[in-house]
C-alpha cells in the first residue's frame, strides 16, 4: 500500500532541511512520472512516508545562458525550454529534444530535472546534456557537489543522488566557435511516444575540419553514452572526407557491442545507423551552409 503525507516546501533551504531530517521522502516536481506510479500503487513506493512537493521552488526555475557559463534550473519545464529564445538560438537541439517529449500537457508540467532524476533509459534530456558535457549541481543541507550528467546516471532508474540531496541545477560551458547540432528520435508514434532510439550530435568545426564532436545515444543503450567509435571516426576529419553512412554503421556496431544481440536488434541496428547518418548529414549541411 502506497500511503504518504504530502509536505510542501516553500524554499530550497526548507526542502533541504526536510530531506536531511526525515527518512523515506520522495521529491515531487512535475509529477508526470511519479504521480502515475503513486496512483497505480507501484510497490516500488511501498516504503515512502512523505512526498515533498518542490514544484513551487522559484530558486530551481529559470534558464540563464551567459556568454560562457550556462545554468538551467532543475524545475525548468520542457515547455519553458521550447519557448526560450536563447535556447532556440544557441542550443536548438535542447529545444528539439524537449519538443519530442510527451504532449503539450506533459511538457507544461514535466521538468528537465525530473527527467534526469527519474532516469528512464529512454529519457530524452540526457543525450543533449551529455553532448554538452553538462554537470548537475546536487544540493544538500551540508553544501553542494557537482557531478557530470554522465556519471549521475548509474543504470536505468538509478542515479547517484543521495537521499538528502536535491538536483538543483544543470550547468555547462556554452559551446564556442562554429558549432552545429542535430537531435534525432524514433518513437512508435509522434506524440506521447517513448523514445525507441534517440541521439544528439554536437560538433564544432575549425576551418574545414571537425575540431570537437560528441555523438551521444539516448534509449539505444541502457544508459546514455557517447558513441566512442563514431566520435573518433569524425574527430579531426576533413568535412569533405566524412561518410555519414560509415558513421551510422559504426554507431550501430557499437550499440550492439554494448547491448548484445536482442530481440529488437534486427530493427534497432539499421534504425540507429540511419539516425546517425541523418545527424551527420545535418551537421555537414549546416556547416556547408554557414561557410
Amino acid at each position: 500500500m502506497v500511503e504518504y503525507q504530502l509536505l510542501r516546501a516553500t524554499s530550497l533551504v526548507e526542502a533541504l532541511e526536510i530531506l536531511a531530517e526525515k527518512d523515506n521522502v520522495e521529491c515531487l516536481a512535475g509529477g508526470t512520472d511519479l504521480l502515475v506510479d503513486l496512483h497505480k500503487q507501484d510497490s516500488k513506493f511501498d516504503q515512502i512516508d512523505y512526498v515533498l512537493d518542490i514544484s513551487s521552488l522559484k530558486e530551481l526555475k529559470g534558464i540563464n545562458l551567459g556568454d560562457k557559463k550556462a545554468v538551467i534550473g532543475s524545475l525548468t519545464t520542457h515547455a519553458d525550454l521550447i519557448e526560450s529564445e536563447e535556447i532556440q538560438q544557441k542550443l536548438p537541439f535542447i529545444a528539439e529534444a524537449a519538443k519530442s517529449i510527451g504532449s503539450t500537457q506533459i511538457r507544461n508540467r514535466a521538468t528537465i530535472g525530473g527527467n534526469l532524476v527519474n532516469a528512464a533509459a529512454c529519457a530524452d534530456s540526457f543525450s543533449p546534456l551529455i553532448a554538452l558535457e553538462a554537470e548537475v549541481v546536487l544540493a544538500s543541507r551540508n553544501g553542494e557537489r557537482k557531478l557530470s550528467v554522465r556519471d549521475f546516471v548509474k543504470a536505468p532508474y538509478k542515479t547517484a543522488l543521495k537521499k538528502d540531496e536535491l538536483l538543483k541545477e544543470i550547468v555547462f560551458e556554452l559551446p564556442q566557435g562554429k558549432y552545429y547540432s542535430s537531435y534525432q528520435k524514433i518513437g512508435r508514434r509522434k506524440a506521447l511516444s517513448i523514445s525507441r532510439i534517440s541521439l544528439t550530435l554536437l560538433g564544432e568545426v575549425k576551418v574545414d575540419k571537425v575540431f570537437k564532436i560528441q555523438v551521444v545515444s539516448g534509449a539505444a543503450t541502457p544508459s546514455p553514452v557517447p558513441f566512442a567509435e563514431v566520435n573518433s571516426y569524425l574527430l579531426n576529419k576533413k568535412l569533405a572526407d566524412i561518410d555519414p553512412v560509415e558513421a551510422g554503421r559504426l554507431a550501430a556496431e557499437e550499440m550492439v557491442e554494448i547491448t548484445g544481440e536482442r530481440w529488437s536488434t534486427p530493427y534497432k541496428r539499421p534504425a540507429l545507423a540511419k539516425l546517425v547518418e541523418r545527424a551527420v548529414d545535418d551537421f555537414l549541411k549546416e556547416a556547408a551552409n554557414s561557410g
Partner: protein
Amino acid sequence: MAKLDVEITVNSKKYNLKVGSQERLLDTIRKELKLTGTKEGCSVGECGACTVIVDDKAVNSCMILTAQVDGSEIITVEGLESKKGLSPLQKAFVEKQAIQCGFCTPGMLMSALALLKNNPRPNKEKIKTALEGNLCRCTGYQQIIEAVETAAKEWGV
C-alpha cells in the same frame, strides 16, 4: 494523515478546501466541486480527457495533486459557457460536428482554449501540437482541427 489547506479559483469562483495528501486535481474537480465535465480516462497522462487549464496552461489534472496548485486559477469545461450561451469555441465544435461520443470533448476544448488564449491565430501545425495529448477514438480528428480553426477565425467576435 493531516489534510492540507488549499485555495483555488475555479471558473472565477474561489474555493477554500482541505484536501488529502493523495488527492489529485481531477478528484477535487469531479468529487468535491461536482464539476463532472472533466473526464477521467486513462489516469496516466496518455488520453487528455482530464485536461484543464491551470494558470493559462493546459495540463492533465490526473497528474497533479490539488495541494500543488494552491493559489492557482483553474478553468474547466464548465467555465466556457456564459449567460450568453455557448462560447465561440463550443459553437464551432457543434457546427463542425467535432463531437461524436463526447468523452474527449471537454479535454479537447480545454487544450484548444489554452492554445487560443496564448495564440489567437494558430496555424494548423500549432493546432495539431496543442491537441496531440488528446485522444479521440470517434472523429478521426479532422473535424476537431477544423472546429478550432473556425473558432480562431471568430475568436474576436
